[in-house]
């Protein structure tokens, strides 16, 4: 394969590009994957601690009661919701289900809106 000519600029300023909705789902899929990669080990440790005893559960709940920590949990919930929904959408499209442009646009919006609603409902629970 030939290599690109040296000294030639490339236009690739992402903020100047008007992305379709499917691209936002894809970027969100990656972002949520990174959040889960970082967050899941801590969540597993928290789960282990919460299962030790009633007192440990109460201590953990008190520890995570603050608004900033709750916000972190809301972000993890969004990441899990978006990642699962976008992943299922991806799998279905790989099988040719919903892979026409119109349906792909609808499922992209549905993924973004549903993940946001799940995150918002968890925020309403934890931040209230």
């Amino acid at each position, binding site marked *: *394969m*030939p*290599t*690109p*000519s040296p*000294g*030639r*600029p*490339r*236009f*690739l300023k992402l903020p*100047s*590009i*008007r*992305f*379709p909705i*499917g*691209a936002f789902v*894809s970027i969100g899929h990656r972002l949520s994957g990174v959040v889960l990669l970082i967050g899941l080990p801590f969540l597993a440790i928290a789960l282990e601690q919460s299962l030790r005893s009633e007192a440990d559960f109460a201590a953990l709940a008190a520890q995570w009661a603050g608004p900033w920590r709750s916000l972190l949990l809301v972000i993890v919930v969004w990441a899990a919701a978006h990642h699962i929904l976008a992943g299922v959408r*991806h799998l279905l*499209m*790989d*099988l*040719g289900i919903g*892979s*026409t*442009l119109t349906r*792909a646009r609808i499922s992209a919006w549905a993924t973004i809106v549903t993940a946001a609603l799940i995150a918002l409902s968890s925020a309403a629970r934890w931040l209230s």
Partner: protein
Amino acid sequence: MRISIYRFNPELDVGPHMQDYDVDPDSGDKKLLDLLVRLKTIDDSLSFRRSCREGVCGSDAMNINGRNGLACLTALSTLKEPVLLRPLPGFPVIRDLIVDMTQFFAHYHAIRPYLINDEQPPERERLQSPEQRARLNGLYECILCACCSAFCPSYWWNPDKFIGPAGLLQAYRFISDSRDTASAERLAYLDDVYRLYRCRTIMNCTEVCPKGLSPSHAIERIRLALLRESS
């Protein structure tokens, strides 16, 4: 009408910059290409490719207000001002709106874009049934303008390894041709983590194809064909 155009002259400029033009369209100027041709009479240093001016040659592909498209098919009445014109994203810029498409065509040549049939040719042409011919619809119309590949994030990050939506659509055009006998070899060539599977089904390609084709559908069919072959 205000137009802001990406300018780069390798003989004069250290780097690219945007240049603003104010130009009044004539009553006959209907498409963006008409206006660019008018601009060229004002500033003859402005460089862009064009040929057929009716969406057949694919020469005037560019990034128009953030989306790839053909200047000759883009109606001036649909454009928001200032109109921002930039070269195809990710492609090396030769000058202004002209990009180097060497890599793009290397991928096209690699998929062997011609009929392969080692059987004895019939006395007249190789015939197809109407159904077999219909399978080529939505595939043969590709004009290789590169709007799709230049709007594909997977192609931006791996232009040397990923064939890209245009090349894969062309590959499927020959895989699905009843007269071609090299489908197995074609599929074997594509069965690669980068060449085919770098596609993440973002569908930017289908969003911007000026001919209304669906490279993402062709890619999906190739993947399913490979799956059927391996099972």
